[in-house]
């Protein structure tokens, strides 16, 4: 398989919250089985952009979207099958949002809605996913207790586990390690590393080192625009744009 296949192709994307333009003329090609990092200052539109990729912004009122987003060559805003899209494109949110259910039910939720009923299979998926999200050891004895009684970082990892339990093709991660300690962080980074073989990953991060460490491509957002988008090495060693350089080196603002 050509590892430079384009999985997601974004073109002339504009997004408005009411009259407020949050994304301006975004153009980006996201490669299959690569990790693409989105960086940029708070409020620049990273989450907004990420949420357009699986049409999560459909749920917010007063949002207008123009332009094109293609997944596997298909315009996702033309197709009606959002569900298929979201099965294909999984997501971990910025604020951890476990369901008010047990840990087990949280993680098995996706597979169950896909129609998997076999208890053994579900058990296996739950275990694998929790291990993958580096939280199995902490919760294996309390799988039946509520996910809401977990610490912030634990909740975040439950949400990661929930997303990978679906085995989507693309995983969108909005600051998945922001609430994690260095060890869990490195475990999640390892996870991302290994997932790369099979998944296309788009990750928002505020951690430059993390972006540099794990991503293949990086996009730098500023005020709703993509200032620079290139492979990570180039961006971190030899950025095109002065603003990118300033941001990466922390001289910005």
């Amino acid at each position, binding site marked *: 398989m050509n590892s430079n296949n384009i999985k997601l192709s974004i073109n002339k994307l504009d997004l408005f919250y009411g009259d407020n333009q949050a994304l301006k003329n975004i153009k980006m090609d996201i490669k299959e089985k690569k990790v693409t990092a989105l960086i940029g200052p708070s409020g620049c539109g990273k989450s907004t952009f990420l949420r357009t990729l699986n049409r*999560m912004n459909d*749920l917010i009122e007063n949002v207008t979207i123009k332009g094109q987003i293609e997944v596997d060559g298909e315009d996702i805003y033309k197709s009606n099958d959002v*569900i298929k899209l*979201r099965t294909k494109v999984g997501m971990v949110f910025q604020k951890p*949002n476990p*369901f*008010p259910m047990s840990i087990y039910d949280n993680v098995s939720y996706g597979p169950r809605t896909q129609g998997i009923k076999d208890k053994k299979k579900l058990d296996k998926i739950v275990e694998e996913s929790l291990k993958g999200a580096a939280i199995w050891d902490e919760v294996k004895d309390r799988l039946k207790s509520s996910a809401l009684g977990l610490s912030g970082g634990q909740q975040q990892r439950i949400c990661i586990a*929930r*997303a990978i339990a679906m085995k989507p093709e693309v995983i969108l991660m909005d600051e998945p390690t922001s609430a994690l300690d260095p060890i869990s962080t490195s475990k999640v980074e390892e996870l991302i590393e290994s997932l790369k073989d099979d998944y296309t990953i788009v990750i928002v991060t505020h951690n430059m080192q993390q972006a540099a460490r794990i991503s293949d491509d990086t996009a730098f957002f500023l005020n709703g625009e993509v200032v620079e988008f290139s492979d990570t090495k180039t961006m971190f060693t030899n950025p095109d744009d002065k603003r990118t350089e300033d941001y990466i080196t922390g001289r910005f603002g």
Partner: protein
Amino acid sequence: MRKLKENILKLLVYLSAAFTVTTLVVIVGYIFVQGIGGINPTFLFSDYSSSGDGGILPMIVTTLYTVALSIAVATPIGVLAAIYLQEYAKKGKMVTAIRFATESLAGIPSIIYGLFGGIFFVVTLGMRYSILSGSLTVAIIILPVIIRTTEEALKTVPQSYREASLALGSTKFQTLYKVVLPSAIPGILSGLILSVGRVIGESAAILLTAGTVAQMPGGIFDSARTLTVHAYLLTKEKGDISGAASIGIVLIIMVLLLNTIAKVIAKKLNKANY
């Protein structure tokens, strides 16, 4: 200054609660004092007789029929309609208009529903005076309550739950069924409990649609008299206040039982919720 304001507010909260509780105690107390004398096994468990020494068994049975039937009809329609309005329909003039109509209908006196039911169900649809006609009529009466309380309950479910579920490729329906509804159960339940109260307490609308036949109903196609209609006729025609109060006691106990059952069922349904 801050302390003073705070204490005044606190006082108001306590006073209000005290007012409510006092009202409750006084009303229930009054009903018990007036009615307890009339409560005996014959009154509760024997058939009605116009001579006055019979019981209210037929009315108890009729009331249970009416509650069961009207709740069974109105709950699914009301809850599902609320789901449609809140989760599916495009927010806009249409939904606002429907909501407004619904709310305004909640204030129309039930006797008008009774007259409507008396023409629509009893005559036009040929159901005649029957428990069925009565139940369908009160089902319409409680529809606004169920719709509105369900809508509110749905609104309180955090959007992040929906997002999380949808992002996992669940359909809207799965999201509703597995995440949203379980979280909304308490709100829906309070609507249902209010509705049960409304059905049980209804007289005018039922009188004009289910009729007043004081006999044990053989089925839902029979005309019959509910407890409240009976109490109504007793006070209105005979001025028999203690008789009405005795019925009141039976109704209070019935409401208590029904509410408990509703809560137990809801708890079962709600097992997904922590």
